[in-house]
């Protein structure tokens, strides 16, 4: 594999893109479903919590910086440790990539390609994933670094343009479905930050720990703000419980833009932005899947894996019989249990690696 290096802003942009693309899917709605009119508090709470846990994880990880999760698995348990860690990450990726692929494709079909078969729409996303994998991580991160500011600007524009519909009384009751529901029941929503596990595969591409930490923090701050703003604006415009019925929250918001007869309904521009973000998100996930597989089995090249894995992902994405089943796989299973892998498993690996290293030093 050629030598890859990722810049500071590129990592920040990856963090923003990975966490925020789900805004375009169902994030504001799920927040609203969980906490009612206090969805924005839940969003701020989970973002903050994820940030704190991430900081804690970084502290654990600091001494082993330069090694990714697979290397740490090997450090802990040799080849079996490496393979177990790899299989966990691969399983995680192979679960959420097809689900997200299906969701993005279904949404696209519903929004604009109503009579096209789902497989046709999926092929466009799959095509970008395959080609992006051929071009490699550097190309993906570079495009992402350029696209993220543009997409962010478009997203903020939508939030601003619906400003005339803001109604702060819609946020009442302030604590929505209750404090317990927000602060205890909302904990599994940490799974929205599950991509964190992928970021611990990237340190070998960044030279210094401080750069990694700083860039991740910047990414976290921006991503947390966007997630929070999306929920807040959504709830300012759609009051609970109407907000829980909105299929694609930001799409719905963009449809409400109306400034006279000429400037109205910006959903098509939103569509360009949204599909580009989805392509970036899926491509990055797909590349990391291939990279993890390659690294787990210590293969020399990842390119021969592209087509077989693309076929697997494509088949898996078409397995759910309909969109609702795909959403169920995402919001019911993944959102409730995803954090166990991304946060709990990763933290365990860091702790075990720390102990192992300390033992090794004593010996």
């Amino acid at each position, binding site marked *: 594999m050629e030598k890859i290096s990722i810049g500071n802003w590129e990592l920040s942009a990856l963090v923003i893109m990975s966490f925020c693309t789900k805004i375009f899917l169902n994030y504001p709605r799920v927040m609203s479903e969980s906490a009612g009119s206090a969805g924005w508090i839940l969003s701020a709470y989970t973002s903050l919590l994820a940030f704190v846990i991430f900081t804690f994880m970084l502290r654990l990880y600091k001494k082993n910086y330069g090694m990714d999760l697979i290397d740490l698995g090997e450090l802990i348990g040799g080849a079996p440790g490496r393979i177990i860690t790899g299989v966990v990450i691969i399983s995680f990726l192979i679960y959420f990539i097809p689900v997200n692929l299906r969701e993005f494709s279904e949404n696209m079909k519903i929004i*604009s*390609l109503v009579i096209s078969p789902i497989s046709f729409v999926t092929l*466009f996303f799959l095509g970008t994933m395959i080609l992006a994998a051929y*071009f490699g991580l550097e*190309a993906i991160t*570079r495009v992402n670094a350029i696209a993220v500011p543009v997409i962010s600007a478009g997203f903020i524009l939508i939030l601003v343009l619906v400003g005339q519909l803001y109604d702060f009384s819609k946020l009442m009751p302030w604590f929505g479905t209750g404090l317990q529901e927000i602060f205890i029941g909302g904990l599994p929503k940490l799974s929205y930050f599950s991509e964190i596990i992928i970021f611990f595969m990237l340190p070998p591409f960044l030279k210094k720990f401080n750069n990694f930490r700083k860039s991740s923090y910047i990414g976290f701050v921006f991503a947390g703000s966007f997630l929070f703003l999306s929920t807040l604006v959504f709830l300012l415009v759609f009051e609970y419980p109407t907000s829980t019925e909105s299929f694609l929250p930001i799409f719905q918001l963009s449809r409400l833009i109306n400034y006279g007869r000429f400037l109205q309904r910006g959903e098509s521009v939103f569509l360009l932005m949204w599909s*580009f973000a989805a392509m970036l998100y899926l491509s990055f996930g797909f590349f990391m899947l291939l990279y993890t597989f390659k690294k787990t089995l210590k293969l020399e090249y990842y390119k021969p894996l592209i087509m077989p894995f693309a076929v697997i992902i494509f088949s898996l994405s078409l397995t759910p019989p309909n969109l609702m089943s795909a959403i169920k796989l995402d919001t019911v299973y993944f959102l409730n249990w995803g954090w166990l892998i991304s946060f709990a498993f990763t933290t365990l690996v860091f702790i075990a690696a720390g102990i192992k290293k300390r033992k090794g030093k004593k010996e």
Partner: protein
Amino acid sequence: MALLRKTLKEYLFFTEPDKPDDFVLEEGKDEGNESCNDAVKDGSGEKREKTEKVRKSKGVIKKLFTPEREDTACYGYDSNADNSEKNESDVKKESKDPESIKRKTSISKDVARNLEYMRKVYNVPLNGDVVIREFEIAFKDKTIPAFSIFFDGLVDRMLVNESILKPLMLLSNIEIKGKEDDIADYVQKHILPQSQMLLEESYEKVIFGINYGCCAIFIDGVDKVFVADAKGWEHRGIERPNAELVIQGPQEGFGEILRINTALIRKILKDEKLIVEDILIGERSKTPCSMLYIKDIVNDSLVQEVRRRLKGVKIDHLIDSGELEQLIEDSTYLPTPQVIYTERPDRVSRYLANGRIAIIVSGSPFALVVPATMWNLFHATEDEYVRFPYANLLRVVRLFAIFLTLLLPGIYIAITNYHHEMIPTDLLLAIEASREKVPFPSVFELLIMEVSFELIREAGIRIPGPIGPTLGIVGALILGQAAVSANIVSPILIIIVAVTGIGSFAIPNFSLAYSFRLQRFAYIALGATAGFLGISFGLFIMFLWIAKAKSFGVPVLVPYGPTTADVNKGNIFRNPTWKQNRRPDDLNVKSKNSQQEISRQWKINEEEN
């Protein structure tokens, strides 16, 4: 069948990459001072050793046939320059080839043999423009036979008559008080007043000189040949650039004469550190090329890389810099250019001052500048000459032009086929009303017009001067009007196609405009297939492709992808001139600052006062 099988195999099965690592422009490498460790590290050590062996073996063979020479040719080129990287097989082949041996063999003292050989080489009398003039030189009470050989039309006849033949034939009869017994010395010191003249010892160099407009003089009893620079071919003078016109700024463009072109740059830069390094390209044509750079600014590893690529070009004839561009660029299949192609000496000078390298090919009025980023291609020369707010307005217009050229037709198709809701109701009704009588689907209608437009444009260029613009007017106005009246296309589509065409003319780089015109058709197809999803797909792939591409080790999307320190330094929008303190970060130049941190010292003085 075998070809089909091979192609299928290539696409379906993975084969281990065997290409060497791409060149990466790194910081702080001294020319010719690369560490051995690096070579071992990147796995190219073995390869380099092989190349060294080839070089050494070539040196041995060369020593056999040609004596060591240190002087550089009077006509500006070392004729050995292009042969420095021949591979082993070439060298072996050459050593067995009698013609090649003969060419490199030392010249005979017998003028008759030389004459016979030159007649054979130049196919005299079959070759009509070769002039061989036989004469005699008086030397110490004896006459010595001699002959001169040159190409009619390539040399200045007056110069040959007055400065070469006349002195040799007439002045030699005058008694000159000289002690020389050697005729070569005598002729050089007393007879020939030519300022640029060399004594060559091998046929190869003599033939190269003759082919390049020199007059060769063979004298009996002398195993050397006088090669006098007598170039006098017809050429175009310095004119205004045709493709890169500016309202404000210098009005000189390159011509076809290499030395005039290099002089134009030297005239602008007036920098003794400007190096004009000559390289011959073309096994047969031996086309002189010059590689220009400012020694104490440019990154040495970049110079090495450009030199390596230029010396690695093995073709028979090199006619134009456009050909050379295609032979040295990083990615052949990338739709966008990776080399700046310009006919303006001032633009080249600016790039040289920034730490880039220019390549000029004899006979081509366009210089190549490397490395190039996408933003360089988007900039126009005038951007630097006008005040910065105006330059930024022009850049915004240009960005808009790129958007129109690349995406407007595709977006129009996507909107009309998939996203009607995006069009305001009144406009939608107007479009629908205008399309009511058109029998074709909108994509077909658009393709008819786009192809027609390309046809008009191509015909307008190919057709002789005065008729060209007429054809454009006839094509655009009359045909367009007729097509609308005949209900073949809708009026709105004429507007779309015309605006797209105008957009493509506003792109400053001709090659980039071509690239966008080509890609436009892909976006039409994608827009027609999947609406905005298709457009997104196309944009995503295009960006990935460009993001992956490099121009001489520099990523073409730098400083935005990858992000470098120059991210806010006037790539999309220009900064005021006084703020442009530093040279581009991505070039890793030796001297980072292009002007003092405070370039307007008078401001401080003003405040102090």
